[in-house]
């Protein structure tokens, strides 16, 4: 194997690895949890409006969201746009772009934070499900016959 062909082959392999990384980056799927729960940042409370229509990347949700709701949306890729509008007054709307870190699987998006123009780092957070507490019935011991 000549040096030239070795360089060519290494180049191809590197190119493919870069391509794989790109595909990973642009294709990574995330589950967004749009959350209208009140959120407290630096002591200040951010509340959502009584009813908002939300669209992500141009696609609108089926139903408007009231306060203290969570809706799941599947997206792919790092860059996204969200438009939050007051259901009562469609003119009052907020349109923002946000970026999701590649390895964040499930993402909590705080609607009130975006509405209230809080600093961008509070808009999204990784979602950790609450630990499930087994109901007492499931903790019953079974007697061995």
């Amino acid at each position: 194997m000549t040096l030239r062909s070795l360089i060519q082959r290494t180049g191809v392999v590197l190119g493919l690895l870069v391509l794989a990384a790109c595909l990973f980056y642009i294709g990574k799927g995330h589950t967004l949890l749009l959350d209208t729960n009140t959120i407290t940042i630096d002591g200040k409370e951010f509340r959502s409006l009584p009813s908002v229509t939300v669209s992500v990347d141009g696609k609108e949700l089926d139903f408007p969201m009231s306060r203290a709701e969570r809706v799941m949306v599947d997206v792919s890729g790092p860059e996204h746009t969200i438009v939050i509008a007051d259901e009562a007054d469609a003119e009052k709307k907020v349109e923002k772009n946000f970026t999701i870190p590649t390895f964040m699987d499930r993402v909590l998006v705080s609607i009130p934070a975006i509405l209230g123009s809080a600093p961008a780092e509070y808009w999204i957070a990784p979602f950790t499900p609450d630990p499930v507490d087994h109901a007492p019935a499931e903790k019953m011991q079974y007697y061995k016959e």
Partner: protein
Amino acid sequence: MKRLRLFFIENAVVILFVILISIAIPASGLPGKFLLQEILTRLGRSSFLVIALLLPIMAGMGLNFGMVLGAMAGQIGLIFVMDWKIVGIPGLLLAMLISLPISILLGWLCGSIMNRAKGREMVTGFILGFFMNGVYMMFALYAMGSLIPVMNPELLLSRGYGIRNVVDLASVRQTLETFIPLKVAGLNIPVLSYLFIAAVSAFIVWFRKTKFGQDMRAVGQNRAVAGAAGIAVDRTRIIAVIISTVLAGFGQIIFLQNLGTINTTNSHEQIGLFSIATLLIGGASVTEASICNALIGVILFHLLFLVAPMAGKNLIGSAMLGEYFRQFVSYGVIALALVLYEWKRVAQDENSRARLRGGRTDVP
């Protein structure tokens, strides 16, 4: 008149099939539009796999029963992509990329083993497929999740390691079909799938014209002569198998994304049988096959696939019968092609031996 007779003999299998199908379609009672849509979909889904078989035939290695190795590589790629939650077209492309090194490795293995069993490549590939199935199962059912980290525990079996029996491909399902939507006369046409098939066909056509392609054809026609002419026979054969395996991997990914689910243990099992039967039904032989054979084969084979159960039920009263008949046809057509191939080969050998003896065929 003689030309007509020759035409019938050369294309016996295709003609037989067309006759069978023309009886079965009306007998099944299935509507034409439904059949047409199904065929359009299946062309997009299965043709790539069948085309993957072309190069080893060109290289004189017969029907590549080892294509199942490529299918396994493709599945592994898809499993990883599902694990890492890469969606849509990027997901599919990434799956193909992941399958690439695995296919190359497996193809190299398959080719090397076939080289050690010259004259018996088909049986060897056949058994190698089964053998690799065992290795694949060890990988997918035992190593995944235990030795190989899996990000998404939902993919695993309840025992904590090993991939589930059924992997749902929801995030990449039907992406090729819907990416470029096209509806003609009420029929959905999977444009992107067809583009993939066009691309691989173009690749094959171009490949045939390159020097390497010519070398491969020379090896296919006569190993000894090709070797004497300075062609690296063994290496050429291995590369033919590697390309075939890689294409089979891509083809399996295309196939599965259309279906929408991976059956971890079964999805790849019948793929060799079906693809080979398809190619043969399209008029190919053990020594010669073209893209035309592949496409015609897909249409005919799948038409039979679709109508046999209903036709069996309507004609004879048992759908199972239609199903067994279809399987019999798949196996039978391969048996027939193999018999015809050996027949011709034996006749050729005896002919050349007779010539050496001065034309007498009654003396050994």
